[in-house]
């Protein structure tokens, strides 16, 4: 059995689904944040798979997709730093990381 592009896209889609289900189901804001990271990584996996399966005329993978993945990893690192700082500030103000306990903006 040979590997095809669909195998990689399927695994990437399943990883995205797991992350998405985690964001919907979990109530701890740090776990929700980790699930967001899972979703970002799922997108990265499909980008790298597209890069490897799109061999150009020079016989090399398409490196544009790998550069895009590099950018996504950089932005994700910045996002984690800011997000965790916000979570710490939230914890200092409310002493909780549960999304159900934070209802000040609820209509």
């Amino acid at each position, binding site marked *: *059995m040979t590997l095809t*592009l669909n195998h990689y896209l399927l695994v990437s889609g399943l990883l995205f689904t797991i992350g998405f289900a985690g964001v919907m189901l979990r109530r701890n804001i740090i776990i929700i944040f980790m699930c967001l990271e899972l979703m970002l*990584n799922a997108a990265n996996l499909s980008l*790298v798979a597209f890069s490897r399966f799109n*061999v150009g005329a020079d*016989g090399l993978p398409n490196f544009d997709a*790998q*550069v895009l993945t590099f950018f996504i990893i950089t932005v994700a690192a*910045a996002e984690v730093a800011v997000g965790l700082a916000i979570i710490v500030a939230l*914890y200092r103000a409310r002493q909780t990381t549960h999304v159900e306990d934070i209802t000040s903006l609820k209509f």
Partner: protein
Amino acid sequence: MNPLLFWLFSILMLGFGISVVANRNPVASALSLVVSFFCLAALYVGLDAYFLASIQVVVYAGAVMVLFLFIIMLLDLKAEVRRKFNKLAICGGAVVALGFSAQLLGVLGSHPRGDQPFPALKLAEGETLNDLQKVGETLFSQYTLPFQVIGVLILVATIGVIVISKRELK
């Protein structure tokens, strides 16, 4: 990539991904996420993206996860107490996840180029793929401006974190 290795690392990655969602203890979730990221790096190696695999290990499994664990231990989060489940959220999550999976299978089934096997790389005799050099050339020729914008973004994020972390927001 060897199909056996692909399935091994894929199943490990998805299994530990589920463990991130299912674990009650945040530290266990974070450690599962580290293993999941390592398996993803192994998949990158199988796709001949060695640079991205090393970046994945250093930045994600190293820096980002250390930050997560640091915050978890700083806030001293205990394992979650069992709460009453929100039925609406569980139903909504299950419906959306299943719907997305079904949609995914449908799209992959009708995707015309999805069945192509692994294309071989054309390399000169005795040459190995130097992907770090190629990524660097692409990054610093075609994508110089986005690279600089990313640098500004990281600077802004750093300043933002310092401002947020100040004891009193004014």
